[in-house]
């Protein structure tokens, strides 16, 4: 142990549960009259970016917020379905800040930072208060109080939700706070703008270069600090549950300029997605994990069973999660549930035409709820049909929009037949390395929300990403950024005529003309699909040293081909979606290589990272805490003559002061 921490993660001294309070009590403040003189750039307007931009605007800073969509309200956060955690203990079922903290650390397979996660748990309650005060319509009980449900990996009900549209309601809350600041003149929004480069002057982030996606104009923007809130990079796999525009460009450009990239190989595979149906599929759709509260997961006991789900009798069904993990059953964490589904399908028990799916069945829940409702309505001796009808109404109220979505996509009625689901790439726990203040290794450059790596370890429990985005934006960055900006009041704004702005702008223009000048034969999408296939096959749900080594070389080759073959029509002086995609795909290709390197280095299994060489006799993930209790932080060192990217590994040692890492057991 005790390898010296070469990265200063600035975790405050003192007992864990007082670190954040102490930090807030002692960090530097900026006088209100000086805030007006300080300019902050926020890239991204999802939950993390919108909440940060709105809050910093409220405090009086001059904020510029950027997003590539036509409105901040469309950020990927809008798609989050299931819910957001908070340690409110409203249900009196034994929840507490410590328990939320503990579940999150354990869920992350002991690869998250204690101090960050504790802070997240501490502010979780304030997030709910804040959102309710904004008018976010969370689900309520008949008594008028807030309602809760459970999510995977926990045994208490701490998840707040708004039907299957929680992300939408939270984002609209943050968006309206943001638009209020726009009206007040503290925030300016640049929509349909893509950040293409960070400008670093004397070691500090001082601005960005952005492309106006409508006119193609390249713009320079100064800021005393730059916040990247640009989301995750799951689309490196081509097929994922992410929005189509989600990408790694901003984080990757920052990485190339000196920001370390942490734990890139930690990808979350979500167990309950609608399975792939055809060649031309462009994305995968999630069925919220909240469905596992009531839905039971099973496959036939018999291999290659071709009967319809409803025709298979009860005693010929294998409820494999309940069988293997009796304590948590269908509510085991995502990595465990995903691997178990893959194991059953690989063993030949999968269902559907492709045999690559398992059933998620609501029949029993419908009857159970139906009986309760009949009881409530004083219906004695109800017939099966009456029970069924009442049960359907309850399920419809709880999950209706998800069921509708399933029906639209598959053409099947999930109220009558069990849904078919399969795991899919969903969330990336890796991201830019940040210290306790959310600052990257570039001074003045911060990363918030899914864009950073800090709070989830090797796996993310459900309902914790929304929590982190809002925690970072509403409650953390206002303090930590102030601590930095307090010293910046002595610095005048730097004019965008500074040579470093010239240089960064030239890099962007050169890259765009290089892209347009390849004039090859292959479409951007087809190159992206090729990358996705390598990533899914060799750096997906299971990884081996051999496969990863192959993948690294195949990706390097693909990168070479990209620059010879990519075909982009149109010009850079207009709205050009193919050009936008091409810029993102080349960054994905470079990132893919790093993800495989990171996965190769980590010769252990943990959370979403499953190295086949490292498993217990019964097929569970086997960690090696003696060797890998660190965050991998990669430094970009330039391109190598052998065609690979230069990346140097730094280790941010994880120290568990309060929790003793043990084998994760959900049995």
């Amino acid at each position, binding site marked *: 142990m005790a390898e010296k921490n070469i990265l200063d993660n600035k975790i405050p001294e003192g007992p864990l549960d007082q670190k954040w309070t102490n930090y807030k009590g002692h960090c530097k403040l900026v006088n209100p009259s000086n805030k007006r003189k300080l300019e902050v750039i926020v890239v991204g307007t999802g939950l993390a970016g919108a909440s940060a931009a*709105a*809050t910093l605007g*409220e405090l009086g800073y001059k904020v510029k917020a950027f997003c590539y*969509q*036509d*409105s901040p*309200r*469309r950020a990927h956060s*809008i*798609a989050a379905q299931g819910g957001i955690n908070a340690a409110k203990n409203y249900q009196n079922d034994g929840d507490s800040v410590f328990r939320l903290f503990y579940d999150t650390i354990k869920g992350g397979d002991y690869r998250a930072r204690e101090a960050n996660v504790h802070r997240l748990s501490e502010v979780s309650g304030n997030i*709910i*208060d*804040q*959102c*309710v*005060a904004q*008018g976010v*319509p969370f*689900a*309520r*009980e*008949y*008594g*008028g109080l807030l309602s809760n449900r459970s999510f995977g990996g926990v045994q208490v009900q701490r998840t707040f939700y708004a039907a299957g*549209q929680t*992300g*939408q*309601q939270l984002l609209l809350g943050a*968006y*309206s*706070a943001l*638009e*209020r600041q*726009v*009206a007040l003149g503290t925030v300016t*929004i640049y929509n349909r703008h893509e950040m293409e480069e960070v400008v670093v002057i004397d070691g500090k982030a001082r601005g960005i270069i952005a492309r106006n996606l*409508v006119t193609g104009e390249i713009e320079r923007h100064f800021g005393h600090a730059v916040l990247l809130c640009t989301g995750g990079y799951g689309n490196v796999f081509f097929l994922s549950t992410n*929005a189509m*525009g989600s990408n790694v460009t901003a984080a990757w450009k920052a990485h190339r300029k000196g920001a370390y990239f942490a734990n890139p190989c930690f990808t979350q595979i979500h167990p309950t997605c609608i399975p792939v*149906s*055809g060649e*031309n*599929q*462009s*994305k995968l*759709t*999630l069925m919220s994990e909240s469905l596992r509260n009531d839905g039971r997961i099973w496959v036939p006991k018999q291999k290659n069973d071709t009967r319809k789900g409803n025709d298979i009798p009860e005693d010929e069904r294998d409820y494999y999660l309940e069988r293997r993990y009796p304590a948590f059953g269908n509510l085991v964490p995502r990595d465990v549930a995903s691997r178990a589904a893959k194991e059953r399908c690989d063993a030949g028990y999968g269902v559907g035409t492709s045999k690559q799916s398992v059933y998620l069945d609501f029949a029993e829940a419908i009857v159970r709820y139906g009986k309760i409702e009949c009881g409530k309505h004083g219906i004695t001796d109800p017939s099966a049909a009456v029970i069924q009808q009442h049960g359907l109404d309850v399920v419809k109220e709880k999950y209706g929009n998800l069921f509708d979505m399933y029906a639209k*996509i*598959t*053409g*099947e009625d999930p109220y009558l037949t069990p849904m078919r689901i399969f795991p899919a790439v969903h969330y990336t726990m890796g991201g830019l390395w940040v210290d306790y203040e959310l600052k990257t290794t570039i001074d003045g450059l911060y990363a918030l929300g899914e864009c950073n790596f800090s709070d989830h370890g090797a796996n993310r429990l459900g309902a914790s990403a929304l929590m982190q985005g809002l925690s970072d934006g509403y409650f953390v960055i*206002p303090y930590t950024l102030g601590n930095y900006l307090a010293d910046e009041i002595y610095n005048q704004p730097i004019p965008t005529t500074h040579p470093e702005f010239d240089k960064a702008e030239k890099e962007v223009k050169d890259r765009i003309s290089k892209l347009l000048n390849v004039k090859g034969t292959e*479409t*951007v999408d*087809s190159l992206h699909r090729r990358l996705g296939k390598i990533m899914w096959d060799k750096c997906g749900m299971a990884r081996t040293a051999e496969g990863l080594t192959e993948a690294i070389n195949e990706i390097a080759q693909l990168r070479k081909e990209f620059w010879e073959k990519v*075909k982009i*029509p149109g010009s850079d002086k*207009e*709205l050009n*979606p193919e050009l936008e995609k091409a810029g993102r795909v080349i960054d994905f290709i470079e990132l893919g290589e790093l993800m495989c390197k990171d996965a190769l280095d980590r010769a252990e299994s943990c959370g979403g990272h499953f190295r086949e060489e490292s498993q217990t006799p019964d097929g569970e993930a086997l960690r090696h805490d003696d060797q890998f209790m660190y965050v991998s932080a990669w430094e970009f060192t330039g391109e190598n003559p052998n065609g690979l990217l230069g990346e140097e590994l730094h280790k941010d040692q994880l120290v568990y002061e309060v929790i003793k890492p043990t084998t994760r057991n959900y049995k």
Partner: protein
Amino acid sequence: MEHYNMNLTLKVWRQANSEAQGNFEIFSVANISSEMSFLEMFDVLNEQLVEEGKEPIAFDHDCREGICGMCSMYINGKPHGPWQQNTTCQLHMRAFKDGDTIVVEPWRAKAFPVIKDLIVDRGAFDRIIEAGGYVSINTGNPQDANNIPIEKKKADEAFAAAACIGCGACVAACKNSSALLFVGAKVSQLALLPQGEPERKSRVFDMLTQMDKEGFGACTSTGACEATCPKGISIANIARLNHEYIRAAVLDDTVH
């Protein structure tokens, strides 16, 4: 579900930018699976166009899950196409038959200028929200969330109004290009909740004033908006907005 393949003819509106003149262009697409989404069919067509060295069709989209509100196009004369309560990204090709001709156009409304092909500028919606579609509260120390109990029925109604995705289909469907369903949804959500109470009067005035400024037309209660809305936002929200307006006008002696 049975799958089938089809060959289709597409008539698509092409327009280089807001100043250029637009016109319809005709394309044929082959072997489209009934399982594909409408936008995946466009992806296939676009890849084909790129391969042929032609400019692909520009259209707005992002989540492809029916929730971000970004995808926007008229399909055979209906915003978001033939299915009820649906977005374009969630429209699947089994809605069509082999040999069909499909006409695709951008939203048409003065307040939504065309940017390119099927992409329009819906910035007016953001500016209407800026005018008052929020609760004025800073981040910090609100009271405990359960100190504001809300009757479940009201909370559910507020949620149903809040489900609007800001897509603009209601405007596109309306012969007057009225934005009243969109505005009504936000005004209703906040009027139903105690949190919205302090700004209840100013909000409805300010949002309506901005709506007029943006060039949206007047509502003549034809109900096309409700019939088209992908999220089933009820026209009752327009009634509630009118009620809020009158209530504010009667109660407020500083009517502007």
